[in-house]
């Protein structure tokens, strides 16, 4: 025991770190902040440390070369003892890190922790969010499979839309004219050196400010932040009724971090590593690329933006979002902290959460995409064909053969790009059906040049049968009159 003490003294005489570490550990914090709501920041840091360790372990095997990355991932998954587990830890660690950073941000926002004097802590936090998302995106590229390849294509297509410098930006992003070896190498450099370097620097500044300015006190409704009085109030709060950070508050951080690591490990064991998916061979086009979970909402949004507004929204939207986040503490640096007295703040969070949740949910089902194999793989349910005439059945064959089923569902089978056709005969009359099929419109391609008159007749005859037995199909009341009149006019005049 005395030997350890002597050894410790030997080092401390030279390093002189003991006293500042002790002071930092035991600095007083408001006693309500020893709370389970205050554990997310440290948990995010724990995730990051896990990512550093597992990332270095993966780099021992991974080859950042477009020709070999995919097979080196296969080797990691199948050829190296527990390589799959390290990949799974890194992948799940990434998901947990993004999730916890977002939760941390929501908590900080709702507790008003971004207000004076912690404005810069929030601003650096916003940068940390961006850098974390940057890590997630570049990491997804390093899993160099079909999704990564076409995801880069999406990134390049977005970058190319920047006015004037767009084409340059694409060349810089890809490192050349196409997605190839140079592209993967530069994303490797970004993911392993540049972005983590920024992340470490920002984390350092962020933590330094948390220590210097003190952790945000528990917000009490009615306790208003004023620049003139806040520092004194906070000093009184910590020194009169504060508790030392170690051990009063830190045990919850440690326990929660342990729980997070345990959860990541359980997910890694149970669900395994992410991919890699198909080989990054651009000549294999039978693929439906999708981004990772945290970018799914964006993927969904891109299919709903109207074409004319897409480029401005894509380029200006993120810039506005980031500026709003950065400016928040500068605009609202004083005032009420408690979420109980900030209904707009709470509603904003709910709105964003519902919007992102809905878009993510939609992206998991991609109702806007044609179901590419519905025409050959999903037959029309039999009840739609019973008791049909030969012409109507012929129409059903046209419906399948011309791939109408890829975009239109019958009995919940088939695509959802266009409306379900189970009761289309109630909505459209025969003439309207013919017009819609031949001319298209309302986001439907025109099939006029691609269907013979006989095929159109058969198809419409089939579509006319699509209505519930209890309801009569739509009909044009003027049709009988008009046809009757033409019958009359066609009669030979005496």
């Amino acid at each position, binding site marked *: 025991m005395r030997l350890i003490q002597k050894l410790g003294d030997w080092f401390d005489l030279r390093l002189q770190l003991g006293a500042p570490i002790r002071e930092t550990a035991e600095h007083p914090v408001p006693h309500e902040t020893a709370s389970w709501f205050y554990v997310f920041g440290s948990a995010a840091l724990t995730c990051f440390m896990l990512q550093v360790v597992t990332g270095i372990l993966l780099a021992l095997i991974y080859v950042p070369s477009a020709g070999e990355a995919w097979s080196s991932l296969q080797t990691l998954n199948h050829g190296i003892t527990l390589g799959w587990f390290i990949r799974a830890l890194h992948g799940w660690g990434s998901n947990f890190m993004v999730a916890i950073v977002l939760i941390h941000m929501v908590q900080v926002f709702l507790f008003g922790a971004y207000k004076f004097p912690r404005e810069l802590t929030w601003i650096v936090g916003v940068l940390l969010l961006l850098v974390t998302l940057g890590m997630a995106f570049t990491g997804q590229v390093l899993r160099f499979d079909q999704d990564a390849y076409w995801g880069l294509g999406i990134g390049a*297509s977005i970058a190319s839309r920047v006015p004037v410098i767009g084409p340059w930006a*694409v060349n810089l992003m890809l490192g050349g004219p*196409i997605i190839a070896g140079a592209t993967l190498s530069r994303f490797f450099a970004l993911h392993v050196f540049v972005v983590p370097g920024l992340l470490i620097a920002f984390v350092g500044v962020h933590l330094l400010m948390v220590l210097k300015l003190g952790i945000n006190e528990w917000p009490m409704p009615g306790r208003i932040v004023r620049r003139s009085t806040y520092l004194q109030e906070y000093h009184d709060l910590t020194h009169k009724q504060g508790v030392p950070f170690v051990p009063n508050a830190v045990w919850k951080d440690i326990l929660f971090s342990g729980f997070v690591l345990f959860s990541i490990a359980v997910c890694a064991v149970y669900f395994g590593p992410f991919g890699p998916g198909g080989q990054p061979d651009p000549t294999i086009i039978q693929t439906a690329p999708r981004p990772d979970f945290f970018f799914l909402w964006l993927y969904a949004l891109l299919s709903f933006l109207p074409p004319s507004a897409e*480029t401005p929204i894509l380029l200006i939207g993120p810039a506005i979002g980031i500026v709003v986040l950065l400016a928040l503490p500068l605009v609202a640096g004083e005032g009420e902290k408690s979420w109980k007295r900030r209904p707009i703040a709470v509603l904003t969070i709910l709105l964003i959460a519902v919007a992102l949740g809905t878009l993510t949910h939609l992206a998991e089902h991609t109702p806007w995409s044609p179901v590419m194999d519905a025409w050959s793989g999903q037959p029309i349910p039999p009840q739609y064909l019973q008791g049909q005439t030969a012409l109507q059945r012929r129409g059903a064959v046209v419906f399948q053969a011309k791939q109408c089923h890829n975009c239109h569902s019958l009995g919940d089978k088939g695509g959802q790009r266009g409306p379900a056709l189970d009761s289309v005969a109630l909505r459209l009359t025969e003439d309207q059906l013919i017009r819609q099929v031949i001319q298209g419109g309302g986001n439907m391609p025109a099939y006029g040049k691609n269907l013979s008159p006989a095929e159109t007749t058969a198809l419409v005859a089939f579509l006319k049968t699509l209505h519930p037995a209890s309801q009569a199909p739509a009909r044009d009341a003027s049709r009988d009159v008009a046809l009757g009149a033409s019958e009359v006019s066609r009669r030979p005049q005496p």
Partner: protein
Amino acid sequence: MSVENGVSRRAMLVKLGLLLNGIVGTFLAVPIVRYLMSPVIREKKFGYESWLSLGALEQFPAGQTRLATYKNPVVNAWDGETADIACWVRNVDDQTFQVFAINCAHLGCPVRWFPQSSLFMCPCHGGAYYQDGSRASGPPERGLFQYHYKIEGGKLLIKAGEMPTPGRAANLKRGGTTCA
């Protein structure tokens, strides 16, 4: 020598040192920036595109649209399979051809050809194009990108080498905007 003089002289030496570092830094910055910008400089000087063969004309029967592949003209040894690029070749009437980029004009996903309905469909966000490459429906703002082509010695050649993107479409022919 007074103390103030000594301080000001040393302060000046510090400034001189900083200035020297600034000058050297600027000199170093030039090659670093040029190195970083090499993909852009390379394009401006030499261009990335050249004429490539897609194979004999017999591979592309009249009235049909077929997938063709080519090796990108600018490659590195470690590009692997990413150097192979696909495109759609439509033989209109044995005289006229259309060669479409595989990339959707929306965000670059690979479009698939469905001969039964004569449509190109994109798996990402549901863009659809007619057989002549013009936009049919969905989020794309324009028709499919088209490569310039020529026929030499019974072979179909296209001018290619750069991934077509919405912002870089100037070098490429625009897809038709009329219906098929």
